[in-house]
């Protein structure tokens, strides 16, 4: 009986001590705007080749959270993000927006005797130079791995 109670209690304690990564199931990024790609839709220009279109960046604030139990340190982990499939795919089209994502702004947002809660932003880089207008979707993956 004592062993069973201990095992059940251990599950509860282990749950509290477990490293947890939380992400929303889905994120809708604000639509891209022309002014992110050029100063205006009509640009005075003095000849030669028109300026290159920049890669667009989107910050996803507080995109994920990490629960680090007492006794562990986030510094002992690598926090990495990537775009699965190397990009966002158009619905019903073969075209793809090459995309990259990186982690920024990891910060401690709460702390209690059981552990610390950290929060981070994701910054998405989108290269829209080769795709036509449309709706695109993909999957972001965040991984914490021990060093």
């Amino acid at each position, binding site marked *: 009986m004592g062993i069973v109670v201990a095992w059940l209690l251990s599950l509860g304690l282990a749950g509290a001590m477990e490293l947890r990564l939380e992400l929303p199931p*889905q994120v809708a990024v604000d639509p891209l705007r022309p002014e992110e790609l050029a100063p205006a839709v009509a640009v005075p220009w003095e000849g030669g080749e028109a300026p290159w*279109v920049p890669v667009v960046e989107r910050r996803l604030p507080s995109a994920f959270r990490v629960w680090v139990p007492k006794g562990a340190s986030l510094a002992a982990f690598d926090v990495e993000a990537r775009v699965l499939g190397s990009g966002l795919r158009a619905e019903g089209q073969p075209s793809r927006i090459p995309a990259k994502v990186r982690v920024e702004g990891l910060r401690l947002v709460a702390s209690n005797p059981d552990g610390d809660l950290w929060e981070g932003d994701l910054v998405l880089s989108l290269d829209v130079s*080769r795709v036509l207008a449309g709706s695109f979707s993909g999957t972001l993956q965040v991984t914490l791995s021990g060093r």
Partner: protein
Amino acid sequence: MKKALFLAVVLAMVGVPMAFAQATGNTSIYVVYPRIAILYYRSSITLQPSASDLITAFAGGNPVNTGATTISTFTSGLGTLEGDATTPATPFSTNVLTTINNFYQVRANYQFQVTVSITDGTLQGDGTTGSGNILMSNVQTELNDSGTWATTVQQPTPGGLGTIHKGDVRFNLDFSGASLIAPNTSATFGDGVVQTVVAFY
């Protein structure tokens, strides 16, 4: 009970290192990429054909060989314009068909059309060096050296914002109402306006 709690802590601590090894989470992301077109336009262009260029353009051969009577290069105050001016088929016409290559550029992620128009076709003499005016008319454009000239041209395969579409324009210049004021050897006429409009279709 104390013994059970002690065992629980031990079991939990034994299990923790495995739980710390790695954690992975996925999230779906959606992006709307709206229709975008960017027009790069020249705010000012100065054409300075020489006298011999104009003579060639007015009457350079009879019959006029439009392929051979190209004015070599206009000197432009902006950028590196290539220009040519050829007479229409009727020799000695006062209308000089003037072509300005790379007049504008467009980037677009949806099929688009470009329309050109003359919103001010009177190039007024400055009153000091030139009097009267030069009249602009019959403006047309082509995209990407297609050879298809019209007031409106369409591009069904825009290719995305990484693709540049080069636009040329051409128009007639009627010099018959323009004259130089002595003793000047050249005159300035100005303030004509060609408008370029990009729209989706």
